[in-house]
């Protein structure tokens, strides 16, 4: 769900080239931010390819990109601040939800449950995220500079067809793989009795998270499809003119 969802925040506002209410300082900062993030995810992409070529197998590639993944995915939390401060015209709540669900998967599932780190499902969502983010951040960079190549715009609104389900599958399988270990160790869980009269079962919580994908995934997916029609719709018009 986080895979293509991160793209919807801008999409929700029709991807207007954002230059309205911020100064040149904010513009420069945002360009630098988006360039750095593009570079970061490129580093992760290259890291994955190199590790695959070196080992000759898909297994355990997570370890080769663990640190940059954590750094750049966590760094994306700045985007919530950008919305809150107003230099990016997206909803704080929507952006917050998208970023935090990624951060949740990175830290509270993959990092916290060592046993799932060697699962192939991790590679599945990391790959989906990597491709999505490289396209997304370069899209923003070019938009800010008012020089958006059609290819990037097209990629952003087309790749999600595959990347989104791919990412969701990887995420769900990873959470599912983590369940038995969480139950066995009681990870992040609190039981009664205690002086705060509170309890929390992380295992049940993860199951609820998985269930929440059912209503949320289709909504976000169809939202992107609708945005695609709006943004790329004119391609069909050209062919009609012939």
């Amino acid at each position, binding site marked *: 769900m986080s895979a293509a969802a991160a793209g919807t925040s801008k999409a929700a506002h029709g991807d207007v080239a954002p230059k309205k209410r911020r100064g040149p300082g904010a513009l420069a900062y945002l360009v630098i931010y988006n360039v750095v993030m593009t570079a970061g995810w490129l580093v992760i992409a290259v890291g994955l390819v190199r590790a695959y070529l070196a080992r000759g197998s898909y297994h355990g590639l997570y370890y080769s990109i663990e640190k940059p993944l954590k750094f750049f995915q966590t760094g994306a939390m700045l985007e919530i601040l950008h919305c809150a401060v107003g230099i990016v015209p997206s909803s704080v709540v929507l952006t917050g939800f998208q970023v935090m669900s990624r951060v949740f998967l990175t830290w509270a599932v993959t990092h916290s449950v060592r046993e799932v780190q060697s699962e192939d499902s991790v590679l599945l969502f990391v790959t989906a995220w990597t491709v999505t983010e490289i396209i997304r951040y370069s899209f923003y960079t070019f938009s800010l500079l008012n020089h958006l190549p059609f290819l990037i715009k097209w990629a952003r609104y087309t790749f999600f067809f595959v990347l989104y389900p791919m990412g969701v599958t990887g995420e769900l399988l990873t959470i599912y793989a983590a369940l038995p270990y969480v139950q066995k160790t009681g990870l992040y869980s609190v039981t*009664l*009795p*205690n*002086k*705060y*009269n*509170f*309890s929390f079962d992380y295992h049940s919580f993860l199951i609820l998270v998985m269930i929440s994908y059912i209503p949320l995934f289709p909504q976000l997916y169809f939202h992107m499809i609708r945005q695609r029609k709006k943004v790329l719709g004119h391609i069909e018009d050209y062919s009609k003119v012939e």
Partner: protein
Amino acid sequence: MKHYEVEILDAKTKDKLCFLDKVEPNATIGEIKSMFHKSHPQWYPARQSIRLDPKGKSLKDEDVLQHLPVGTTATFYFRDLGAQISWVTVFLTEYTGPLVIYLMFYFRVPFIYAPKYDFTTSKHWVVHLACMCHSFHYMKRLLETLFVHRFSHGTMPLRNIFKNCTYYWGFAAWMAYYINHPLYTPPIYGEQQIRLALIIFLFCQIGNFSIHIALRNLRPPGSKTRKIPYPTKNPFTWIFLLVSCPNYTYELGSWLGFTVMTQCLPVAFFTMVGFIQMTVWAKGKHRSYLKEFRDYPPLRSPILPFVL
């Protein structure tokens, strides 16, 4: 007396939905809504939004036709507000839930806790006290809904009842589960803590009620007038000197008291969420007061004296 002609168009499609001729100049929007309802029975007046401009604000039921900026052929735009439900119905439903649900946990009805605890009672007296306070609070709310509050709007969108009931009923169940749990841990500082909490709770319950009465007395029965509330002889209303919405201030106080009384984290969460929502409402109300009244007392804050 020259009569008006009124045409009502759909705000989105601009289709002509209704044409009324020979409308009295002193007819109100409310009366026009009733006439419109006759030709379109599925759109009862409460779900009609009538405006002068398709994207403009809704006109009020009390607005009089001849005082509006329209010619003798008036054009209005209609928007369907969706199915509506009365505020009274919503309040009664959303408050009865917590009352009943909490009691189910208190009496340890089967299928909540382990079977050996079915229909047993807690050995901690604070649990009985908490049940009395919680039940009193929601009974008070129900009675206020029936006999005290004077509502500006008759209705709200139907989907609100599902949203509101989920919130109230859900939190009530979550809190009640822990307070009435066989493994409940009573407050660390024992009797002292419970006594202090009870005093705060009762003080704020009386305060909240006093404010509701004061607000009711601002408005004659059946009217929708708005006036600035001021402190009365009742000392609990003197807080109006510092705060625009002291009913919310006292409500926060009550739940803080209940949190301290039960020493239960879910209650603290409920208090915090409620506080956030009430602050949003208080700020909105405070802003409307400032906009509507030139002479609004400058010392007042929305919900917390001097702070928020």
